[in-house]
């Protein structure tokens, strides 16, 4: 089977040159480095895509990564959601009271959590925890020749290492977002109920009264894009690491920084897209 995208893989060009990060381009200029980085990322993603859709499939590794990305991130995401719920509840109550719109509190909290804060907070938390984890793990494997050993064992590292990690991020982000949403709403209600009597039933009924189910699907599922960004950038940075312990640190840092940055930039585009497509 011939796959042009993989033809140059012996020697794996985007993984082999000295490490160049988006933040620190090593080419003759910033613009050159910028385009080179994106070019290498494109080649990397093409190879991952080709490897991911052709057998053999690495189901065992995917399950391990689902656990690592999802289950291991759950406590952190829930805690972040909890904190955001309390903060939003306090801020919303104060602001709405000033304008005599306290009755809008449940709807304000539900919309702001589910449409805005839940997805972006989950994206940033996962970019920090999972992005750093994947970046450092693969970088460490690269500098100790473990990735070369996988290749030498006749396994495709794009299929065995990158594809399951990226896919796990894509699949787990919406579920983690739901967990963040639920914890934020629960604690938002608790924070409100401690100040003024408000039953959970009243809170839910008022919050979701004017909402359609479809209004909540796009913001939740847009986090699949966040997962793709986080997983791709972390795997890309990790698998092209050079330079020992310093290189490992650099890869972990750039995975978090670039992952978070691109998640925020993607949010701008996705919000506009959702407003246009799902008015």
């Amino acid at each position, binding site marked *: 089977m011939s796959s042009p995208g993989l033809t140059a893989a012996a020697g794996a060009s985007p993984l082999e040159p000295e490490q160049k990060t988006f933040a620190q381009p090593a080419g003759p200029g910033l613009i050159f480095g910028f385009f080179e980085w994106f070019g290498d990322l494109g080649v990397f993603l093409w190879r991952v895509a080709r490897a991911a859709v052709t057998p053999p499939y690495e189901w065992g590794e995917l399950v391990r990564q689902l656990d690592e990305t999802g289950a291991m991130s759950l406590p952190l995401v829930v805690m972040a959601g909890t904190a955001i719920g309390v903060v939003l509840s306090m801020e919303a109550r104060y602001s709405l009271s000033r304008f005599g719109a306290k009755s809008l509190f449940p709807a304000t909290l539900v919309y702001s959590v589910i449409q805005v804060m839940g997805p972006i907070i989950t994206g940033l938390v996962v970019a920090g925890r999972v992005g750093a984890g994947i970046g450092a793990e693969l970088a460490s494997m690269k500098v*100790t020749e473990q990735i070369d050993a996988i290749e030498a064992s006749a396994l495709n590292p794009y299929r065995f290492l990158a594809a399951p990690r990226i896919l796990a991020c894509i699949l787990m982000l919406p579920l983690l977002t739901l967990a963040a949403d639920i914890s934020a709403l629960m604690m938002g209600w608790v924070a409100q109920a401690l100040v003024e009597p408000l039953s959970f039933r009243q809170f839910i009924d008022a919050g979701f009264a004017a909402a359609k189910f479809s209004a909540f699907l796009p913001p939740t599922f847009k986090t699949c894009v966040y997962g793709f960004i986080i997983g791709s950038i972390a795997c890309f940075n990790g698998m092209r690491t050079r330079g020992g312990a310093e290189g490992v640190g650099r890869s972990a840092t750039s995975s978090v920084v670039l992952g978070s940055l691109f998640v925020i930039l993607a949010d701008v585009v996705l919000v506009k897209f959702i407003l246009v497509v799902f008015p």
Partner: protein
Amino acid sequence: MAFAAESTKERNEAASGLAAPAVIVEAVHKSFGNQHVLDGISLTVARGKTLAMLGRSGTGKSVLLRLIIGLEKPDTGSLQVLGRSLAGLTLDELGEVRLKMGFLFQNGALYDSMSVGENVAFPLRHHRHGLSNAEIVDRVKQLLDEVGMSRHLEKMPASLSGGMRKRVGLARALALDPEILLLDEPTAGLDPISSGEIDDLVLKLKTERKMTSVVVTHDMHSARTIADRLALLNHGRVAIEGTFDDLKQSQDPFVVEFLKHS
């Protein structure tokens, strides 16, 4: 030069089908940035034979091993392994060739998230789907026994010494019963007894399984013990290739100097 002529003769025999060398390296150049590591190197390794590559540090010996298994791509020149050119192969096609090769990395390159046993079992689990778990465990024990590491089956790589890691790496390289074994400094950092055991193992593999080996080493004693031919690299080229006696008789100043300090 007589050695070059012999090398050419082997290549001609291969071309005419009289003998099929395991590895043919033809006029390979390789640079990393401004550093020209290999400068038109040509080598042939006959099937069932052991070639030891010697030379000063940084002369491209390890790079040549990585080129043979396809971990690096030559700038120019060609490589053939078991009659198959490596040029233009996809990763999956290259995988078919790699299944016939075992590679021992300089520092073992053990997977640090897996135990010793799991490291050796890794290639078997991914490429020998017909084997039951019990058969894989038996095979792993047998391989670790061959390198004297069967007592350390459950240990994690972090708790092993450098020499032990190397021996586990060798067991892993042998897991798929390869036709060609590529060894990057197999005896470096080992005590003399362990070093002798590795030499004995390589000799045994050659005798019993007709395994072809390419060994990068600084250990002249080991090279002399296990290799049929030795290639001395200098400035990215083969300074001399032949038997140990051929090297000893050479009047080339670099060869004389190298042997004097070995």
